[in-house]
């Protein structure tokens, strides 16, 4: 529909190169039975972004046979379809025809986010309690006395009970967990402070005392829960956006039985020696050996090689490789759990150790803070006991100290900055997994890049289009439109605007090229040795006898040169990293020649070619041993172990699934400027966090002596706590103010539209 069309088309172009439509068997396997013959399938449709999209999709899907209901969720960019019967309705094809690329993903059994709804309910209950108790407290502060004051205290005590039990439970559980494992976290002083304040206030109420801290304990919970909920929402949003991207691992495969029967089996049930049929456009599910057929394979995600590899029977293939042109029969040589993909996951898990040593700033501060606070309160109690001998007074003052030091501002100091920073990155198409990632990114002093798919797009680009006869280029483009080989796709982009030229027959010869017949002539587009069978000499391109040519009846009429196009802004991004004092290196699985070209183009002095996945890990470990903190940016399966061994890691959205899961940041746009931007925002966030902690400490330095001297009333406590929290929040919001230029303005829109935005043209 009108507004969605351009974005959607662009999406097809980009995404289409790496993913294909899920087959109906695959959809069936991924669907979830709702009982009574009803099944539900969840599809991720990254390009929906307006009301018109919702209507188009829901109407079109609703009209299909056997479809019970279709519902679009615009926030998560998903469509859930309920359908009946054995036959899978063709909803993916329908979506495709409407211009929306759909991806399957696991239907989660309990799709609802339990933690989030618990947090929101807790915020609601705490907010209700805090509001009502505050109202009652205000009348006490303004002079309610005697029986009225007692009544107000009793009502407050009653309202506070559900708030403490329900909303406080989150803190009590976390504090208990920490204590049981002999650790300290911010929740320990919160739990102790809140429950002691409540107990003391209850005692006061029973004895008709004038100071009760019900308001303080409940509003404390309320403020802290707000911070915690914001933090959770931000992270969850990033997580679902990342998960909604295309699924790159094969889910199952067509197995050819000995008796000729064909079964579609999930990957987990495929055993060695089974024969598998791999159609053009499928991913290879397990390691195997080719029995029959020839094709071109895209190994870029697996090995980092930028050029497709032609394969013939007898050659081994690795799981995760994409089959481009011909159909293949392979014999499985390993089960899924022993395949290349699983091997990468194991290396990744083994490497995880390094990062676990990192402790978040908040944890480090609270490990110091909690004992100091408790010690201060205890010493205050002893001091007043020694001075006056009045245990009730000593207790009251000690609890006032606990309340005033309760880390309200400190609890907000770190998360609020991280939420604001994550929001800024989100608006620029960068997803952050958690707050500690930003803290780690701020400290890096070396950056390591993968080549194919990270510094480059991993897609060839035609470089000599201007020197080719336009008529020939148009013919080549029309022929190339029939193939999904990356070279063909690059050529097909140059199709002449006026309609398709008519060929009598177009056939694709996997591993060689495309042949077409038109008006008695035979045209071939492909390898020089195959296409130009009459002209073995002359017209040699950069690649000698290799390279891609267009021939007419065996005579070469055009030569095509390709190079792997660098990502947008790659050079500028690397310069900005250098300016920020970060040394840049490139590690690649590709050949030295290919790496040399890219490094010259982008101005990277230091590169190591031909690395195995373990080689990348070793390089990073060596750097780490030299005391450097390393940022790894990579996208391939072969980068995954390196992504998880590095101090912090970034992956583009086009990365393999497990790579995206291993990385701390995922950027959705094509531009590599995301990397220096993430570094910049993280460093600013780091300095704001330190400022906020300083503010919280200064507040305590002022307020604690007042509390120790016994001058704190519930009114003063309420004012001091709110003021310090507001100060900290205000300081954190300054990060939003760093957004200055027009680029951020235009990207704000894009951020909302998520994935589609990276693909749409800049507006």
């Amino acid at each position, binding site marked *: 529909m009108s507004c969605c069309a351009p974005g959607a088309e662009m999406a097809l172009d980009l995404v289409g190169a790496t993913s294909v439509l899920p087959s109906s068997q695959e959809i069936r396997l991924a669907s979830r039975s709702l009982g009574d013959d009803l099944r539900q399938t969840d599809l991720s449709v990254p390009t929906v972004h*307006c*009301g018109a999209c*919702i*209507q188009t999709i*829901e109407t079109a899907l609703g009209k299909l046979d056997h479809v019970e*209901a279709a*519902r*679009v*969720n*615009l*926030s*998560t960019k998903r469509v859930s379809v309920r359908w009946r019967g054995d036959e899978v309705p063709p909803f993916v094809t329908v979506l495709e025809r409407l211009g929306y690329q759909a991806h399957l993903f696991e239907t989660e059994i309990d799709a609802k986010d339990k933690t989030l*709804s618990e947090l*929101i*309910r807790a915020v*609601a*209950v705490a907010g*209700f309690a805090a*509001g*009502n108790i505050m*109202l009652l407290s205000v009348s006490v502060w303004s002079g309610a006395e005697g*029986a*009225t004051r007692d*009544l107000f205290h009793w*009502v407050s005590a009653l*309202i506070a009970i559900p708030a403490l039990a329900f909303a406080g439970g989150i803190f009590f559980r976390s504090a208990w967990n920490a204590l049981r494992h002999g650790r300290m976290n911010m929740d320990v002083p919160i739990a102790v402070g809140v429950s002691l304040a409540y107990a003391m206030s209850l005692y006061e109420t029973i004895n008709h005392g004038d100071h009760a801290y019900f308001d303080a304990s409940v509003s404390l919970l309320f403020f802290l829960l707000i911070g915690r909920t914001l933090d959770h929402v931000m992270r969850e949003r990033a997580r679902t956006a990342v998960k909604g991207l295309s699924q790159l691992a094969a889910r199952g495969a067509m197995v050819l039985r000995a008796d000729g029967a064909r079964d579609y089996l999930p990957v987990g049930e495929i055993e060695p020696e089974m024969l598998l049929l791999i159609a053009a456009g499928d991913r290879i599910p397990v390691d195997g050996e080719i029995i029959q057929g020839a094709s071109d394979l895209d190994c870029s995600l697996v090995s980092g090689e930028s050029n497709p590899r032609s394969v013939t029977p007898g050659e081994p293939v690795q799981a995760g490789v994409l089959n481009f042109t011909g159909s293949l029969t392979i014999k499985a040589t390993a089960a899924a759990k022993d395949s290349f993909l699983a091997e990468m996951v194991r290396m990744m898990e083994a490497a995880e150790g390094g990062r676990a040593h990192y402790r978040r700033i908040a944890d480090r501060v609270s490990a110091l803070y909690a004992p100091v606070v408790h010690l201060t309160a205890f010493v205050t109690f002893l001091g007043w006991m020694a001075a006056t001998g009045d245990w009730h007074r000593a207790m009251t003052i000690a609890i006032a100290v606990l309340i005033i030091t309760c880390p309200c501002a400190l609890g907000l100091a770190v998360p609020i900055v991280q939420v604001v920073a994550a929001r800024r990155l989100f608006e620029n198409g960068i997803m952050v997994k958690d707050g500690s990632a930003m803290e780690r990114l701020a400290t890096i002093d070396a950056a390591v890049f993968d080549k194919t798919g990270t510094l480059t797009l991993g897609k060839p680009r035609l470089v000599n289009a201007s020197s080719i006869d336009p008529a020939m280029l148009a013919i080549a483009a029309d022929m190339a439109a029939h193939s999904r080989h990356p070279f063909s796709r690059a050529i097909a982009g140059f199709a002449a605007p006026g309609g398709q030229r008519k060929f009598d027959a177009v056939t694709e010869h996997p591993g060689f090229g495309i042949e077409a017949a038109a008006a008695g002539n035979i045209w071939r587009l492909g390898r020089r040795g195959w296409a130009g069978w009459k002209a073995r000499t002359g017209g040699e391109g950069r690649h000698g006898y290799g390279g891609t040519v267009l021939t007419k009846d065996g005579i070469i009429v055009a030569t095509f040169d390709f190079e792997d196009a660098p990502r947008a802004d790659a050079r500028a991004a690397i310069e900005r990293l250098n300016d920020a004092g970060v040394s840049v290196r490139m590690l690649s699985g590709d050949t030295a020649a290919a790496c040399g070209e890219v490094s010259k183009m982008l101005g990277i002095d230091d590169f190591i070619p031909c690395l195995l996945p373990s080689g990348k890990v070793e390089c990073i470990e060596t750097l780490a041993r030299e005391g450097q903190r390393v940022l790894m940016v990579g996208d391939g399966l072969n980068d995954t172990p390196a992504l998880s061994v590095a101090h912090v890691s970034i992956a583009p959205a086009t990365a393999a699934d497990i790579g995206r899961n291993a990385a701390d940041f995922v950027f959705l746009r094509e531009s590599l400027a995301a990397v220096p931007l993430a570094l910049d925002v993280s460093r600013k966030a780091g300095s704001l966090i330190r400022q906020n902690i300083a503010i919280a400490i200064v507040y305590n330095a002022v307020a604690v002596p007042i509390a120790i001297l016994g001058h704190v009333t519930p009114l003063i406590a309420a004012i001091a706590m709110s003021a310090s929290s507001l100060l900290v929040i205000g300081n954190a919001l300054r990060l939003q103010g760093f957004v200055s230029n027009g680029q951020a303005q235009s990207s704000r829109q894009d951020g*909302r539209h998520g994935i589609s935005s990276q693909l749409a043209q800049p507006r």
Partner: protein
Amino acid sequence: MTTLSYLIPVALFLGALGLGGFLWALRSGQYEDLDGAAERILIDGDDKPQG
């Protein structure tokens, strides 16, 4: 004092009503697709809640 004896319950009741309303909205899935809800108002004939 006597006014308080009914004013406080009334205030708490109204507050609880709001809280209950919010929790109900949360449970019935009205916060699941905030962006979608904003757009759906423009679609004619789509006034049924999520099934």
